[in-house]
Each structure stands twice: as structure tokens, then as C-alpha cells.
């Protein structure tokens, strides 16, 4: 099958997902973009303050992962019996810990 056909099929399927998850997916795309920009910048300019690069990059990776985890927990096919509020609270707490250390490590 053609790559285009795979893509079309994927797109029609994806349009059926609820709006909440699509907003999260847009956020995921944004985080991915910032991560790629940081990585390309580091590859071009060099790694001199390596800790700064690492803290920025891990901030994007960590946010990405945590948002994916949130998406898994509140999605329609989620195996968890967890309220949206609790999932979001856990998500915020983990993000807080992550960014606290990102700020510390930035240098």
C-alpha cells in the first residue's frame, strides 16, 4: 500500500478521537517541536553548557512523557478507574517536581 493511503486511513480514524485528546495531542506536538529545535541548536552550536542543554532537553522529554501518561489515563480506552481530577493533579505534581529540578540544573 502507498504511504499516502496509510496516511489517509490514519487521518480518517484519528478524526474520530474526542476533542479533549486532540487538544492534548496538539500540546504534545508543540513539546516535540521545542525538543527538536533545542536538539538541532545543540548539534549546530556545540554542547558547551552541557547541563543547560540537558536540563532544557529533559524538560521537553519529561513533559512529553508525562502528557502521554495523562493521555493514557484519561483516554476513552483507559484501563484505569481514576477520576480526571486525580489524574490531572498527579500530572501537575510530577511536572512540578520535574521543572523544579530543571530550574536547579539549568545553571
Amino acid at each position, binding site marked *: *500500500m502507498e504511504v499516502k*493511503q*496509510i496516511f489517509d486511513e490514519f487521518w480518517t480514524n484519528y478524526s474520530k478521537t474526542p476533542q479533549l485528546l486532540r487538544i492534548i495531542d496538539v500540546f504534545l506536538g508543540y513539546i516535540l517541536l521545542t525538543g527538536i529545535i533545542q536538539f538541532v541548536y545543540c548539534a549546530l552550536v556545540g554542547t558547551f553548557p552541557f547541563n543547560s542543554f540537558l536540563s532544557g532537553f529533559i524538560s521537553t*522529554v519529561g513533559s512529553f512523557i508525562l502528557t502521554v501518561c495523562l493521555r493514557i489515563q484519561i483516554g476513552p480506552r483507559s484501563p484505569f478507574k481514576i477520576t480526571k481530577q486525580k489524574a490531572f493533579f498527579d500530572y501537575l*505534581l510530577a511536572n512540578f*517536581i520535574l521543572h523544579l529540578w530543571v530550574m536547579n540544573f539549568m545553571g
Partner: protein
Amino acid sequence: MKAITANNSFLRGISENKQEFLLKFLILGLIYALAFFTRLYSVLRYESVIHEFDPYFNFRSTKYLVNEGFYNFLNWFDDKSWYPLGRIVGGTIYPGLMMTAAAVFWVLNHFHITVNIRNVCVLLAPWFASNTAMITYFMAKETKNSSTGLVAAALIAIVPGYISRSVAGSFDNEGIAIFTLLLTYGFWVKSVNTGSILWSALTTLAYFYMVSAWGGYIFIINLIPLYTLVMLVTGRFSERLYIAYCTFYTIGTLLSMQITFVGFQAVQSSEHMAAFGVFGLLQIHSFINWARTQLSPRAFARFFRISITAFAALVGSALVLGLATGYISPWTGRFYALLNFTYAKDNIPIIASVSEHQPTTWASFFFDLHILVFFMPAGLYYSFTKLNDANIFVVCYGITSVYFAGVMVRLMLVLAPVACILSAIAISSTLETWMKAIKPNLRKTKNTVEYTGQKEIGYVVVTGMTVMLMLYVFHCSWVTSEAYSSPSIVLAANQPDGSRIIFDDFREAYRWLAYNTAEDARVMSWWDYGYQISAMANRTILVDNNTWNNTHIAQVGKAMASNEENALKIMRQLDVDYVLVIFGGLTGYASDDINKFLWMVRIAGSADPNVVESDYFSPEGAFRVDSEGSSTMLNSLMYKMCYWRFGSVYTDYGKPPGFDRVRSVEIGNKDFSLNVVEEVYTTQHWLVRIYKVKDQDNRA
């Protein structure tokens, strides 16, 4: 477990649940107290003093932290050790232990409970052992049920393998490291069981505490990926695992880099690459799973094939590039020696010479674990009968730690907790099955099978189990009392008439140094005693137990092993004022410098090919100090310093003067003169001998 009805209950008027809770609370409280008190033998017998060698450095660092403050501690450059190189202490230690002790000290003093910092350091390890027992209860409860938790907590409170490194006075990293290890693993098992982001975040915080405490965190960062891989391969992948591992890995890596000693190793060294690899693998797996839900089967198959080839090419080339350019550093010596255990013996004599790094004997396994040795495989069996996510983790942990405990004696410590948990599974399952056989059957279901003699067999099994557990308690108490409670800085011996002599020579010598030498005097000794001299005598030393510079140690070894003129050259080069040696020939103390002498020669020989080990052996190839010993040996500085004036001392009935009680021979070279050093102090039992390097003559 369901309790029987309230009519037969022990306490009337309280509901079943509350009775159960009260019982659990009481048992855990007793375990908490037991774990603390069983570690206090040496405090009761001798005094509240820091033991061994490494704890003295930790003690000195904690005092520095308490006196100078947090930022000065992190930036501390110690110029009183490794003269003339100095040591960047702030960046080369795991600060968790010192921070914990300082925090406890500050909290207590804030509430005006004025405890001395020394007492805080001495009693920190027993207190953390109590906490470890509580965490083991939590972890075993997550693995099976709360009765297993209680048995596990009781077992770990007194298991000798753990007590050996956590007695009162043993102020070392392992004292808190095992607590943080089990905390991380307990939270990990909970987060895999629940799949909650909160528990995963708590796991990363516990992991951070572990990284700050001990170099053994490498075990965690490799075991958890191994477990995840095992789960993937056995088809038990679930969203909970994904959430737990990914959160743990990303935030955990960031946190582990906060410790200066770890630094960027977390993303660069080979020891951490397994975690990264599994992380990537999990992403791929989840993405493929998600894509599968979005596409039709034909489209998905095509998509799958394209992405697999592209990805394999990418990863393969990145790995080859990384290893070839050396960006990904290969496994470092200490950890590589765990995988290839002949590596240290052939290549790095200093790692091979440490007695804790030797392979473990069978006797050690039984000595440190007693009945856990055969309950642990039983626990593995019970785990396999009812596999779930938590069980598989404990099984992985158990198998890997058995391997590592077999490679290095010191790692018995890592085996002890999981041996307790697995044994608890076995003991608890057995007791559960057979207690049911004894009690009157109130709920007859279709499944209960009754047979004749059921009660009798039940009684036999339960009695047998009880007897074994009692023997375990006796063994543990005996081992703690006899083997693991000696402070090493104070020795005791029993005289024939039953009275005890105390040998306090070490502290006597260090105190003499502190009071009778200049403030900036430099003391040369073998690296074993460096930390103790630094902490108690407060003088500048040349080499200490950190052993970070092999060449510097080799220089000291060469000075000890050469004759007087060559030794003087090295000592002048290094600005040495005093030399300190440990001599056991008068008392029979076997860990003295003459017994360590060959290691000095080997290490010196590894840096300077002029020092040849075979020169120090007799013509037949034996290491002797009597008249058959080689002349290189009998004229070396170490020999002369140890045996100065010893030739005229009578040590034993019916033996000639100069009879060395450790080597059991009469020494060979008795009448010699010391030209480059002069004796300034010998302790009461001749254990420590201090010499001063003579000034140059006034006349040329």
C-alpha cells in the same frame, strides 16, 4: 486474611478489622524497636565510638557540613589529605549520608534536644535499619499480602547480612543506602501495581535519595530496565508499566545528574545505557500499539515494516558511532570487575586487594543468611505459582542479587533484603496453608479437601517452622554479638584468667599526634589508616582510603619497601614529617603492615617496574621475616620501622627475644641502625609506631 468471628476473638468489644490493625501495629512497633536495639552491642560493650575506617571520613565530613554550612560543604576542597594534591571532596562523594546526619542533628537541636554530632552519627544506622524494616513490610505487602509483609519485616530486622554494615558506629553509606534502595523498589512495585503518576514521581524522589547515598544506585538503574525488558518479552506489557517506567526514567535521570559525583555519567557512561535502550524500546512498543488501533491490519503491516527497518538502521548507526568515537565510555573498572571477575586481579591490584571485594564463600552465605538460604528458593517457587507484576520484579531482583553476592562479599548486603522478602513469601504461604489445617473449619467450601491426619501433620509442620525461626533468631543474635559488633578501633582480648584487656592503641597514637606535632605536619602511612588519622589526629596525610590516585599510593608503597636511602629521597620529595606503621608482632594482631606488605610491593610495582615482588621472597619463594628472609625484605624501611628495638623484647614464654607472634618466627635482622628516621612514639602494646624523619645534618 479473614479473621474468625468476634465470639472467639481475643479482645471482646472491638471489631475484627480493628483487632487486626492493632495486632499489626503492635508487631511492627516491636520489630522497629528490635531492629534498633539488636545493633547496640558495641555501644554497650565499649562506648559510643565510630568504627572502622571509612566511617571516620564520613564523620569528619559531617562535622565539616555542620560547622561550615551547606554551600561550603558542596564546594569543599580538602588540602589536608593527599598531600600535595589535595582532594575535591565536594565533587567526589555521595553526600546523602552526611546530609541525613546533619539534618537529624539540626532537627534535634532545633527542639533543644542537644545530642552530640558523634552520637547522631553512631546511632544513625540502627535507626535507619528500623525504617528499613518498615519499608520491607510495605514492599512485601505490595508483592503478596500483609502477613508476608510482617514476616519479611521481622526477618530483615535481624538478618546478619544487613546487620554487618549497619551496627551502631558503622557510619557508612550502606547504612542508609539499603533503606533508600528498598524505598525505591517499594515505591516502584507500588507504581507498577497502580500505574499512578504520583507513585512514579515518589519513586523518582526515592531514587534521587538513593543516588545521593551510594554508588550502588547502578544496580537500580539496571535492574528496573531489565525487569521492564523481561515484562516486554513475556508479554506482560501494560499501560501501568509504561507510565511507571517512563516517568521514572526521565525524571530519575535528571535527578541523578544533580549529584556532582554522578554528573553527566547518567547520559554518557555505558552503565546507564541499558536504561536508555529500554526507554527507547518502550516508546517504540507503545507507539506501534497505538498505531495498531488507528489503522486497518493491511495498512498497519506495511507501516510496521517501513518503520522497523528505518529505526533499526538509525539506532544501529548511532550506537556504532557513539562507541567508536568513545563518546559512550565503556564500563569502568569497579563495575566491569563484577561482570568479568578476573579483571581486577590481573589489571587493578588496588581493587583486588580490598578484602570486601573477594568472592563469597559458601560459609559466608550461610553465616549471613542462615535459614533464608533454603527458604529463598522456596519463595521463588511460590512466586512462580502465582506470577503477577510485583512477583516477577522480586524474582528478577533475587536472581541478580544472588549472582552479584557470589562475586563480591560486600554485595551480600544487597542480597539480604530480597532473601528476606522471598523467604517471607515461602514462610507465610506455608504457614497459611497449614494453619488452616489446624483451625476448626468454619467455612466448608467445595474446594477444601479433608483427609485423616490433617491436623497432626499441620501441627508438625507449624512446629517445625517455629523451631527453625527460633534457631534463626538465636543464630542472628549470636552472629551480631560475636562477629559484627567489634569497633576495629578498639580491640579486646581475653586473658587466661578470664579478664579482658582493651587495646586502645590506635586512639592513643592519633591523640599523641594531635597534641605533640606541629599543626601542618605531614604524616605518611599506608592508605588504610588515612581517614582515621585525618579525623582523629587532624594532620595532613599523603594517601587515604579513597584510593583515587594509584600512582601516589604506589610512591608511598615504594618508600615503605625501599631501603633507607631510597626511601629518604621519596620522603623528602613528598615533604613527609612523620611516618606511622601498625605492628602486631607483640600482641598477635594479624592485620598489621607486615602482613599487608606484599600488597604495598605489588601496588608499587604496578607503577614503577624497578620494584620487583620476587625480590622480597626468600630463595625458595616464601615470604619470611626470619633469618631466611631475603635481604631486600630485611633491609626495607617497613621492616626496620616495625622491628626497631624489637630484637630485645621477650614476647612469649620459652621463645627467644624478638619472636614475632603473628608470623610465629624469630625475626632475622635484629641489630640494625635507623639512620633516616627516629622513633618518637610507640604505643603501650606496640601496635602503632610513629617515626620522625630526621632533619638534614648541619654539616655537609
